[in-house]
């Protein structure tokens, strides 16, 4: 212990401890409040007298909360699969195949990252309502699962992330594969994808979080409650919370849990790719 807390590292440890407390406190607060009775929660005690695990059951079974959570899981999973299906081949083409105007197209795509998301919602909405082009699977996608997922199945950031990784794969591998008569598709599915699993997992997690977070878009296109995601449900809960602080916190904890769980298993990859992203730019 004496070695850890010498004078060199005392100040950094104090800073990190403060940061640790501030980072973790809202979670601690959420968990503690979710275990309290209504009265304890309103007076905002630090600890509950007796942990009330019933709160979770009450939230889970009331107001369709269960259904909304499952909705969110379905929406996010489908979005992740969709994004990976479009992004992996796109990233591969940008990284390893020569075609006319390749760089121009790529830079135009990157430029579109500059467009605030809120602006893209409006044209998306018009397309979803079938006013610009005729849509497959029904004339309007308002209030449907495809309306919630399909518009987000192309993600430029993910393409960019994967492209950087695919570029590093040595050319010798492709030369060898081509000698054996492999096509681009074969090379991509059998060699590139298995080699790039870490970055694909990170990209998947990233997409999942973004999809789980989606809030303005469902609010816009859902007029019925069938496909409400959990974010919209939490939002309406906040608006009419009244004295039910403990139930709101229990609901929040349930809604955050899947993300925290996923993060817990992939955190090393996640931190690594964030660090790399910053340096490469």
């Amino acid at each position: 212990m004496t070695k850890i807390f010498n004078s060199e590292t005392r100040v950094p440890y104090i800073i990190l401890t403060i940061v640790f407390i501030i980072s973790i406190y809202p979670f601690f607060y959420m968990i503690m409040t979710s275990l309290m009775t209504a009265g304890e929660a309103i007076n905002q005690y630090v600890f509950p007298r007796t942990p009330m695990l019933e709160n979770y059951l009450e939230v889970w079974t009331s107001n369709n909360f269960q259904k909304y959570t499952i909705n969110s899981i379905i929406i996010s999973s489908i979005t992740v699969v969709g994004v990976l299906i479009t992004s992996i081949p796109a990233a591969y083409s940008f990284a390893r195949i020569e075609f006319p105007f390749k760089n121009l197209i790529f830079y135009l795509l990157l430029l579109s990252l500059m467009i605030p998301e809120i602006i893209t919602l409006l044209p998306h909405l018009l397309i979803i309502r079938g006013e610009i082009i005729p849509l497959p699977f029904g004339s309007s996608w308002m209030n449907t699962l495809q309306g919630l997922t399909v518009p987000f199945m192309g993600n430029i950031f993910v393409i960019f992330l994967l492209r950087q990784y695919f570029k590093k794969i040595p050319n010798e591998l492709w030369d060898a594969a081509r000698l054996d008569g492999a096509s681009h598709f074969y090379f991509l599915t059998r060699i590139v994808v298995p080699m790039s699993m870490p970055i694909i997992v990170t990209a998947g997690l990233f997409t999942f979080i973004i999809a789980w977070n989606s809030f303005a878009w469902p609010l816009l296109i859902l007029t019925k409650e069938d496909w409400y995601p959990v974010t919209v449900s939490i939002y309406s809960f906040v608006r009419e919370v009244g004295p039910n602080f403990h139930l709101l916190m229990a609901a929040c904890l349930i809604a955050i849990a899947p993300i925290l769980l996923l993060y817990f298993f992939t955190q090393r990859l996640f931190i690594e790719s964030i660090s790399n992203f910053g340096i490469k730019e």
Partner: protein
Amino acid sequence: MVDQGDEDYLYALIYTLYYAFFTIIFEIGLGLVIAFALYQKLAGKQFFQMILLFPYITPAVMGAAVFFLIFGKAETSFLNQFVGIFGIEPQLWLFDKRPITEVLFGVKIDGLFAGPSLALTSSIFYGIWSYTGYYAIILLAGLSIIPSDLYEAARVEGASRWQTFIKITVPLLMPIIFFLALTGFINTFQAFNSIFVMQTSSAGDTMDVVTIEIFDHFWGRVKYGYAAAEGVILFVLLNVLAISQYVIFRKKIHYD
């Protein structure tokens, strides 16, 4: 309306500017301090890195719901209990539309220098909380690629810690700080979920940043053309900001 322009939109831009400016300054400043602390050879570095990203991955709607209670107006709300320790009177936080200068110093100023309302300041706190760890991780990555022989040389020359920091670390980090400031502007100008959730009616329109204003126009009032026009202005402004940042910082990036 066309003659005099939409005042709400102008104010929305000013509030957005407050939000962007204060969050980015604190995120980068605090991020640097944290990154520097992590850069010392410490035990448990991996653990701290993991904790640091917790706020970043927390979905904004749920995070904002928690902050909505922490920054509550009741006298018993956590923050009021906390500031009570230092003898500060309970505040209304997210429910207070007075400008921050009035709350802090009791002076009434009109216009741009009045600063954000206490309600907007509270949501700025959320912005800082959720992004600082992410910035620290990126800055830490930047620190770790600075060659260590530069520090050796500085030590041989007898430079103090502070001098090394100002003369070596900061200039070499400049490209990354610039990148973070640029993406920070793009991100903060897009902040929507957390502010939308934390909005209260008693804060009036002092929390209506530009994204909320646009969303309100086409969700609440169904004025698509108007919302689209506001969106285009936002896009142009963002590009002007990005380009001017690039021009200003360009000289400082080339440190050789």
